[in-house]
């Protein structure tokens, strides 16, 4: 009853192919953006902005990037963190070598460098598939972390191998307050999410999905496998690189190569597995699950128990509850949280008279 398409007639192809064809979805999207752009900035405090929302958005972008590659194009990658590292270090290096460059250009440069590296490491995907490809991308993970740790040029000869992001100025305004950082990340992430959503329903996106579902069949109907797969690697790495630059510049401010280790790659892979492969909302839901839930559990734990239980126990309980949640969701809905959301919508469509 609430969520019903009855009476919404599409009279043109344009209306039928709209990004959100259903009226209620449009309303929901507008409401969500209103919350993100207006309600949260009014009500959230600095703690929420800096240590919960900004990291959540930055990692959502990485999850979005991986979802393009794994969810849409079906190529498994374990090198996400490495591509993030490329983005972060490329943006940093451009700004250090050429200080006149505005930071947004440096971010884009980081994204493009990462895309280049991603395409390079995506080349094996033309020959190998599945687990074997995962292992090949693992090479990217180890190689790039090693590269940034061992060649001081990349860290501008910093003694400790830690890079410190230069200050970000936009139109004469320095971005350092939590609110301005939040807006910066939010703008970038929203734009990227819309781009990915659009890309996914275009010819390119359909080609990706065709390759994902069966690459021989896709080739037979005239899809150029090389172009399609490498494009997926490029777009995915671009988003990951951008996310890495955000992580270094906005979330932490200083970053060492170890911040982009294999654990981060797995974390992002888990995000899209839990969130839902092949959907934009899945990336956000998964990132929310992986980032917010541990912090929430930890906060609730310390709030409820006070000093009675040591932080060690709380941390261990956090791991256990979190693990239980992962197993629960994987059993109840193997297709991820995005699928749950979709099912919910379908239920709402029939409510209150389900059949």
């Amino acid at each position, binding site marked *: 009853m609430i969520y019903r398409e009855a009476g919404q007639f599409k009279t043109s192809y344009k209306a039928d192919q709209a990004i959100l064809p259903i009226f209620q979805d449009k309303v929901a999207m507008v409401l969500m953006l209103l919350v993100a752009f207006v309600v949260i900035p009014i009500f959230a405090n*600095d*703690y929420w902005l*800096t*240590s*919960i929302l900004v*990291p959540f958005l930055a990692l959502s972008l990485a999850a979005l990037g991986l979802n393009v590659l794994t969810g849409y194009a079906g190529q498994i990658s374990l090198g996400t963190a490495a591509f993030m590292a490329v983005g972060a270090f490329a943006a940093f290096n451009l700004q250090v070598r050429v200080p006149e460059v505005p930071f947004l250009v440096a971010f884009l440069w980081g994204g493009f460098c990462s895309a280049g590296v991603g395409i390079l490491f995506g080349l094996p995907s033309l020959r190998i598939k599945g687990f074997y490809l995962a292992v090949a991308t693992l090479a990217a993970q180890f190689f790039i972390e090693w590269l940034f*740790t*061992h060649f001081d040029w990349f860290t501008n000869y910093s*003694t*400790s*191998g*830690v890079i*410190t992001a*230069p*200050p970000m100025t936009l139109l004469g305004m320095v971005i*350092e307050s939590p609110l301005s950082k939040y807006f910066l990340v939010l703008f970038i992430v929203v734009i990227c999410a819309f781009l990915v959503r659009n890309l996914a329903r275009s010819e390119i996106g359909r080609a990706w999905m065709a390759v994902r579902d069966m690459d021989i069949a896709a080739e037979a109907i005239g899809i150029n496998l090389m172009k399609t797969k490498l494009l997926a690697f490029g777009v995915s790495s671009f988003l990951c690189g951008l996310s890495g630059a955000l992580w270094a510049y906005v*979330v*932490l*401010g*200083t*970053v*060492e190569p*170890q*911040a982009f*280790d294999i654990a981060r790659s797995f974390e992002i892979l888990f995000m899209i597995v839990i969130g839902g492969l092949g959907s934009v909302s899945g990336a956000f839901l998964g990132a929310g699950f992986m980032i917010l839930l541990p*912090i929430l559990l*930890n*906060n609730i734990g*310390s*709030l*409820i128990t*006070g000093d009675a239980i*040591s*932080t*060690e126990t*709380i*941390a*261990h309980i956090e*791991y256990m509850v979190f693990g239980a949640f992962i197993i629960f969701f994987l059993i109840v809905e193997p297709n991820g949280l995005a699928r749950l959301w979709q099912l919910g919508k379908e239920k709402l469509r029939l409510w209150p008279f389900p059949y």
Partner: protein
Amino acid sequence: MFKIISIITSLFIFFLVTISIAGEHFVPITSYRTGPYGVSGAPAANGYVDYLKMINARDGGVGGVELAWEECETAYKPDRFVECYERLKNKGDAGATVFQPLGTGLTYSVIDRVAADEIPLITLGYGRTDASDGSVFPWVFPLMVNYWSLSTAKIKYIGEKEGGMDKLKGLKIANVYHDSAYGKETLPVLRAQAEKYGFELEGFPVAHPGLDQKATWLNVRRYKPDYVILRGWGVMNQTAIKEASRARIPANKLVGVVWSCSELDTIPAGKAAIGYTCSSFINPGANYKVFDDILKHVYDADNGTGARKEVGHQQNYKVGVLMGIMTVEAITKATEKYGNKPMSGKEVRWGIENLDFDDARLKELGIDGFIPTFKISCADHEGGAPIKFQRWNGNAFEPASDWISTDQSIVRPLIEASAAGYAKEKGITSSCN
């Protein structure tokens, strides 16, 4: 259902109310008791908390104002540490007094933030070395010794063992280090010393967390070093000591840094560790009044944080107690100037900058002989305390040297150059006021 929700909400409100009792110095404790470094982090956190408990029980807090603290688990991860930092920085009546991250990577992640939030950061024997230049880093305090000073003391110790600094010429020294911000921090100062004294230096990085070091130690053996500097943390240390013995490098040729100098590193290595020497800014042994006080006021009252046997007998625990001493002493100094009320970070910063651990004060605190005397000033946020080397005899650490002073003639110019570079990069005008 509504009943449950209402019970939960009322519980929440109850705890929110109980947390905000008026009139306390708030000490944020960011510890790591889990993860690959949890073994090292847990005793340190125990020591820190025990000392605060003892001060509350024995003295009723500082200046009549009780100490309050909240612990937050970082798992030694910078992003979780930043989250903890943001969570704790505004708690308490006057905000957080001082943060002690106990990790170099963690330190780096908040250096800009502490300056913006005006909360001091104490990094006791670790952290960003050039922050010792207080004119550029007013909010960061690598108290007692920084990594570079430590390194000069280590080379001096090796020189003493060889019978003079001129004997260093031609020696081969291997530097086995944790491949992270922490491990790499000493590379420039080691290079500078190699040039000055004419010894040969070769670095052998070990990837985090350092459980697999077979290949590294094969290379070290092939290099045939006269001494090996071990710069590890957590589980890397015991593995290194074991692998060194397997590679037939005698334990007395190993010289560990401050963070490779704990029973946690030597006991698991068993016999391989006998004769292992490492540096420390604290004296071995448990016969100091401060530990008696902790046992009496905290453990006898059944309020101990960790195991009773740790107290005074565990190196990381002692470091934790020392962290507590630094925090409490800084708050004490601050209350002397600003009066007996909950201290803010800004006021505590003044306290740290005016810390003066002279013999009389060490005696009052019950730590005479435990640490050397040192003094902090605006320009010198380190204090340049001397270093004690200690040897593992199979059961306990025993002193292996006198207090060896650090060589500030090497360190200070490097620090000032590095800090000036940072100031230029960030557009900071250095000043001491």
